């Protein structure tokens, strides 16, 4: 699949999903189950992406500098640090550990 195709197709789908709510009668999503599934879907996908982005390398689970970096990010989130600080700190922790040759 060509990268441009992926980008344009995914963008079109996400745009249409935003439009859908303005077109359907409000009764559907006001029912508790579809709305609960949609909210939990977001949580499940993000949690799975945290795991794969932290641990996956070349089709396997690997413990490297990303693990302490994400740990620092979690601590900063508990301390209510802004998003950009959390993201930058994780990058710095991983970069420094790798520079020192630890947990490359």
């Amino acid at each position, binding site marked *: 699949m060509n990268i441009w195709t992926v980008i344009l197709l995914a963008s079109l789908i996400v745009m249409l999903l935003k439009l859908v709510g303005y077109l359907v009668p409000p009764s559907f999503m*006001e029912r508790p189950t579809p709305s609960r599934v949609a909210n939990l879907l977001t949580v499940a996908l993000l949690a799975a992406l945290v795991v794969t982005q932290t641990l996956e390398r070349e089709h396997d689970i690997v413990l490297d500098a990303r693990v302490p970096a994400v740990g620092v990010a*979690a601590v900063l989130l508990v301390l209510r640090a802004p998003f950009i600080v959390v993201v930058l700190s994780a990058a710095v922790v991983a970069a420094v550990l790798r520079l020192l040759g630890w947990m490359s």
Partner: protein
Amino acid sequence: MADPDTSAAVRAGLAVGLAVAAYGVSFGALAVASGLDVWQTCVLSLFMFSGGSQFALIGVLASGGAAAGPAAITSAALLGVRNSLYSMRMSPIIGGPWWRKLLAAQWTIDESTAVSTAQPTLRGQKTGFWVTGAVIYVGWNLTTFLGALLGDLVGDVRQYGLDAAAAAAFLGLLWPRLRARQPIAVAAGAAVVAALLVPVLPPGLPVLAAALVAVVVGITNWLGAKAAA
């Protein structure tokens, strides 16, 4: 502007909008690091314009390349489903002719909906939506472009810890949603399923399989509050 509800909505929209627009830098840099060029990165922010979906798309493409295209599209789409909930909530607030709703649709995201629905009056709700949407749309696209240029200069993703930054970005998006037992259980379950399936399934698919945890828990309402909706 003399109306206090309107000015409160404008202030909330500006504050949230400017804070969120700053994420665009991390998105732009990470998108380029995951193999997109600067134009592809900018097109995503212009057209897709939904942070979670955009990060998911580039996350899956980073691990699986173009071969993971279908899984990347599906992940982005599933994360976009919540925008349908928001647009349903926003539809009566936006009101007016069809073209106004068409315009509003592209700006219907987490933040514009949150600012709008937090305002006490209909007028404040309308103002909050449009101000937040406009500030984030303009800011997000500008900072995406800057981030993409920056990512282009950086080159080696791992040396600068950009792979860890992407993981932290997902954690940052997830964090505010972990306020009750049910989402925490779903997050834990999805994390375990994804980790177990990584060595078994092609890139991108472990994430989609983990989404099933949400479907099962959501339909059975396991651990759910009785009145939760």
